[in-house]
């Protein structure tokens, strides 16, 4: 176990170290000014020096991301279940959902700020909107593609439609839904940061814009690093939760469903 586990952790770490070395190499070779691209060490110093400021803004962004994730996943799930359950809803809501995806999120952001102000609300909503679609569509796809054999069984067992939906279709849709949730976890920070760019007084996106205006490029990069680290943690956190929820669906086992 241990001998397998260590390289699994070491390999991505090694990749990070190589990337940082390349970064330093580019700076040394090209002599690019530090207000364009700061050295890794300068970013590291900024991370430590400005840790209180970074933490202050990170908390806001984390709340926005988590709020958006929870709200978007719940709303997406309810949509997927309703679409699977009610045929008339499919005819009206499904085309609308697809059309809604043609609206660029960036274009929506200023309108949301206008309507909802500059607080947490519109950022959470932005994150929710960006998460909602992958969850709703993968969830609905999964619910729709329940193998006919299980539906046959359910029918001969004498199940009603609600029981079929929650006890047969929903667990059968979990692997498909899981890929939607992983997508959602990696997209959530985008929604929050876009919201902060358009108009905010707190948050990592706001800090980046602010630092950019003051030519504090090292702080800007430090904020980016914090954001990336959180996004990665979020992804693996969601992944771990999904593994817990699907103990049968381990890698290499039961991949046929």
């Amino acid at each position: 176990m241990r001998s397998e586990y260590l390289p699994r952790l070491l390999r991505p770490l090694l990749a990070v170290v190589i990337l940082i070395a390349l970064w330093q190499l580019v700076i040394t070779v090209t002599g690019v000014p530090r207000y364009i691209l700061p050295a890794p060490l300068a970013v590291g110093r900024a991370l430590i020096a400005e840790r209180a400021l970074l933490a202050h803004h990170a908390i806001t962004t984390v709340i926005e991301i988590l709020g958006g994730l929870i709200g978007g996943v719940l709303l997406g799930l309810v949509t997927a279940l309703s679409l699977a359950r009610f045929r008339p809803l499919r005819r009206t809501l499904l085309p609308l959902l697809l059309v809604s995806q043609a609206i660029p999120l960036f274009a929506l952001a200023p309108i949301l700020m206008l309507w909802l102000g500059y607080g947490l609300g519109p950022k959470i909503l932005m994150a929710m909107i960006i998460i909602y679609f992958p969850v709703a569509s993968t969830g609905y796809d999964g619910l729709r593609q329940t193998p006919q054999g299980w539906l046959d069984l359910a029918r001969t067992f004498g199940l009603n439609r609600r029981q079929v939906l929650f006890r047969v279709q929903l667990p059968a849709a979990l692997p498909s839904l899981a890929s939607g949730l992983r997508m959602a976890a990696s997209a959530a920070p985008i929604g929050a940061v876009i919201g902060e760019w358009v108009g905010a007084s707190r948050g990592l996106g706001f800090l980046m814009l602010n630092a950019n205006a003051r030519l504090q490029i090292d702080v800007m990069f430090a904020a980016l690093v914090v954001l990336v680290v959180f996004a990665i943690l979020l992804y693996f956190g969601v992944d771990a939760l999904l593994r817990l929820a699907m103990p049968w669906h381990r890698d290499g086992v039961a991949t046929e469903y």
Partner: protein
Amino acid sequence: MTPPGLHVRNASLTFGQRALFSKLECEFPASSWTCLLGRSGSGKSSLLRMIAGLHLPDNHHLDLTTSDGEALRGRLAWMAQQDLLVPWERVLGNVMLGARWRGERSASAVARAREMLALVGLAERADAWPAALSGGQRQRVSLARTLFEDASVVLMDEPFSAVDAITRLELHELAYRLLAERTVIMVTHDPLEALRLAERILVLKGDPARLVPLAAPETPRPRALDDAEVQTRQTALVAELRETADAQ
């Protein structure tokens, strides 16, 4: 649990513009084991699905009456070619899947599921995930799940065709022993399987198809492979199935 006999009338199935069969009528006596044979595409599986009341995409109709006049719903167990084990339940949960899905929770159900699992010889695998079982073991769990439903009518659609030949022979003996006394209709494409297990053999053939009854051996079941009756009738049965193709 007195198994009812089934009476099928006006069974019609249209596939696109083509009528596979129309106005079929047949009788399945109580506590009898009937094997339904036919070539691929003859509509034998569809006929079974119609009796079970399962979804079919094509145009179909069937009138079903039971010998005791009561509905078949709730007294019927279904076994398909695929084992249909759900990966999110362990083996024991799969045996009592009907109870799980209907939301019936009781200690006696668990005890009964363990009993059924022991009957198919898999008591010690109760806590395994289905993915850890072999194809033959999975089909035995599927058989245990069918038994758990305690249905007096059992409909089986090529239940043993996905396992290897030796496992199939073992499953025949197990299924015969465990499903005795019930009204069984089994669709199969394997003449040998039908000759080992059936009391009655029906062949679905022709265009549009009719049900042709064929004499099954009179010897006690499950019949051995070297049973003289099985040997001689196999040739006749294969010829009967072949004739369908020649007629078309």
